[in-house]
């Protein structure tokens, strides 16, 4: 365990959300790292200060209440599904495009005019652009279908990455300690 991971674990431990295995790893790390031990002590003191402030400002009984108001916008799951579908369609378009550009014959053919076997690329024996779709100048030389595939793939990856980022405590906590 490195120091950044240890700091994440200290926070999770304070929230009582640290898994037992990570707890023992944290204990081992704290035995050898003075800085992290200090962070843990400071976090414990902060916790006492929060308790003190809470005790001085009234009862702490709100946790007994039922709060049942779900967030009105639940776009996460549909968005993840849409991202997966977009990713699949995008990849299919890109693979289909690559397949249409790849020559179907052998890559090299022997030149029959000479006794020595000279290998020349297949492309030289074909008329230029025989297997290619006409390139469009407006789209940077790439046809719109390829662009569509690329956009869909990027969209899919971006949304799935965002979802993972929100779900996984290990990933998002890195943001907290980026500065420290």
């Amino acid at each position, binding site marked *: 365990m490195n120091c950044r991971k240890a700091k994440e674990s200290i*926070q999770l431990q*304070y*929230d009582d959300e640290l898994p037992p295995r990570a707890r023992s790893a944290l204990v081992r790390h704290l035995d050898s790292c003075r800085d992290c031990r*200090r*962070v843990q*002590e*400071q*976090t414990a*003191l*902060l*916790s*006492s*200060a*929060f308790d*003190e*402030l*809470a*005790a*001085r*400002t*009234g*009862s*702490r*009984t*709100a*946790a007994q*209440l*039922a*709060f*049942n*108001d*779900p*967030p*009105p*916008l639940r776009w*996460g799951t549909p968005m993840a599904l849409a991202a997966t579908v977009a990713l699949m369609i995008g990849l299919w378009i890109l693979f289909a495009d690559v397949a249409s550009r790849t020559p179907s014959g052998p890559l090299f053919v022997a030149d029959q005019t000479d006794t020595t076997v000279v290998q020349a690329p297949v492309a030289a024996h074909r008329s230029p652009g025989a297997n290619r779709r006409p390139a469009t100048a407006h789209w940077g030389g790439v046809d719109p279908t390829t662009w569509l595939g690329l956009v869909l793939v990027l969209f899919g990856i971006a949304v799935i990455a965002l979802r993972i980022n*929100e*779900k996984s*405590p290990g990933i*998002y*906590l890195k*943001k*907290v*300690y980026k500065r*420290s």
Partner: protein
Amino acid sequence: MRPGLEESLSILNQPADAAAMAASSAGPHVYAGAGMDVWMMSLRPRLVALARRFLWNAHDAEEVTQEALMLAWKHATELIPATRNAWVYRTTINLCLSRLRRKRAQLAPMEDLVAPATDPARSETLSELAGRVRMAICELPELLRVALVLRDLEGLDYRQISAIVHARPATLRLRVHRARETVRQTLLERWPDSFGTDR
């Protein structure tokens, strides 16, 4: 203001039994929901505590709570019993934040806050640290402050906070951790001796 609203609000200052009787005799236009008055009565001290944890001032907290309960009474017919706790908490927080946007928090001295009965020597050190932590909390951005107050001062879990502020538990966890880290850094920068002399 709706007719009878002032009369309705006066029952908030009465004991629960008296409030229920007053409400039932006030007529259907006043008695908006079954158990509404008792619910408001039971919630009042909790809302005052919540407002104090944002405003750090008993007088302002009382005013904000009264305002929040007035709004709850006004919208009594629209409030669903299952979700009204979250609604009134959210409303109270919003009122606190809008008050803080208009003017900075008038922090009451720490001595004015009721001290819990603990070991006096330890209490003095802790009280000093708590005072500094309070100042650091006041300087946090709103989103972080709300998450920290609800989690560490109110003692709510992330699902409950999620219902109140309409954010994902994972997002809230991030905000709380960031807020704690910011408070810790603020203390170390401004008062290096906050956590003892060994730094």
